[in-house]
């Protein structure tokens, strides 16, 4: 009983630790004053956020654009890669295993620095394109591992059955493998969207002047004086996260059944 109580207490403390700062942000977002002292309830920071923060929304649109494009490309490339690692043999299989595992474990900053140096050394202009390339690169390994873990439970005999019934390679892929892998592919896609929307460090290095994503914009807001608009933005983002998490659970259930 004692052990159970200890772990329960630790769990409660952890929850408080995780949520307290977020609750503070939520409460502060409704504070009409600029400081932390409570000046009364107000929605003025939401008004500022929605009606007077054009640059923020521009960076938000860039973030969405990059998250969608890079996640689709990385999901396609990562899924094919997972299929190749699971079922096929080819010469550079060992090399592929190593290079698809390493980016997952190296610190972000290494990828940021090396991509910056690469792009600069080949005189590739920094901007949205380099952000897209970087995001696709760090998303591919995540998709690969999510899809690969799905493939471990995949019953290959249904693919063989399809071949026996005369399916071509392409038909087997599009009519049998991909539909059956859909839950894994969707998890991979959602994971890449989330990672892309959240990435700060790698984007910071490869963005160059002029193109800013939402995390870069938030960073500059924090760095150049704390603005209560961030509180309002945080609340919107937290609410969006929870809504997305809930709906994807529903979507996933729907896709599986």
């Amino acid at each position, binding site marked *: 009983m004692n052990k159970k109580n200890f772990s329960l207490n630790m769990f409660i403390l*952890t929850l408080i630790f995780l949520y*307290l700062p977020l609750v503070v942000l939520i409460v502060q977002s409704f504070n009409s004053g600029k400081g932390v002292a409570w000046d009364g309830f107000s929605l003025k920071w939401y008004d500022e956020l929605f009606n007077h923060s054009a640059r923020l929304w521009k960076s938000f649109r860039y973030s969405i654009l990059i998250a969608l494009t890079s996640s689709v490309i990385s999901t396609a490339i990562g899924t094919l890669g997972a299929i190749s690692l699971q079922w096929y043999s080819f010469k550079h299989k060992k090399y592929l295993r190593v290079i698809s595992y390493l980016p997952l474990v*190296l610190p972000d900053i290494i990828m940021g620095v090396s991509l910056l140096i690469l792009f600069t*050394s080949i005189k590739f202009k920094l901007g949205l394109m380099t952000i897209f390339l970087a995001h696709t690169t760090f998303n591919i390994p995540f998709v690969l591992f999510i899809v690969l873990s799905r493939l471990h439970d995949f019953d290959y005999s249904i693919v063989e059955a399809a071949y026996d019934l005369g399916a071509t390679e392409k038909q087997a892929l599009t009519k049998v493998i991909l539909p059956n892998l859909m839950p894994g592919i969707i998890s991979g896609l959602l994971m890449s969207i989330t990672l892309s929307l959240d990435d700060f460090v790698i984007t910071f290095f490869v963005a160059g002047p002029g193109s800013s994503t939402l995390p870069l914009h*938030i960073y500059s807001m924090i760095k150049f004086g704390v603005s209560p608009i961030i509180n309002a933005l945080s609340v919107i983002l937290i609410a969006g*996260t929870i809504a997305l998490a809930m709906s994807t659970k529903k979507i996933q259930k729907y896709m599986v059944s």
Partner: protein
Amino acid sequence: MKNQRSGLVYSTPITLWLTLLFVAPTLIVVIYSFLKKGIYGGVEWIFSVDGYNFFSSSYFLKVVWNTVEISVIATVITVLIAIPTALYIATSKYKNFLLFLIIIPFWTNFLIRIYSWIALLGNNGLLNNLLIKLGFEPHQFIYNKFAVILVSVYAYLPYAILPLYSAIEKFDFAIIDAARDLGASKMKAYIKTFLPNIKPGVITATLFTFIPALGSYAIPKLVGGNDSQMLGNIIARELTITRNWPKAAAISTILTIITVVFIVILSKYDKDHKGGKV
């Protein structure tokens, strides 16, 4: 196993992409680290080991020490909090819901999570306001090592809880009862049966906390002070302000090597002990 040609069709896009945008840039960094610094940033194509001469700088050694110290302390605290938390979740009836509660803050934007601590502990933050109201002197809670460690624990805790949770979920708690029946004390039963069995989870949790901590950039930049700058901050400074690219490349190379060595040691340790389980 299918034929080699189709294998190439499936594996070529990923191999090409990662070779061009992961392997090649990493190699370029290593090459740059052995070149001469250009006058206006960039490099000159002349061999030089100047990039690596930072070991004589006491400031650099201090930053290395900060990085190791902060990462180790943050990792130990994170894992110590994560084990009982994961244990509670894994043995609860409401596993999925509790996991969901842990994951939500983790899905909240990384910078917002850092910012939330500035709002709480900053010089004009909530806590200081409270102190002043209660008649105490305000205190500087952030821009020091303590803040960097605290926020790191906050940022990486979910990464540690998840692998520990999946390791604990597989653990058969009847083993604890068996050990108790055979006369082990509660403490001993946990140390001798529970910990060895969740070791893979502990190792993954350690990796998932320690590696991002080693490469931290945003946390020490936003809540650290001069005494708590980490390697990531030096790399960024050499790259963007001082514009000594060989040096930035050399430090990145060393950070990469440290990380790889660390992973190899830990995963070997993990394998060695898997076989020895009774």
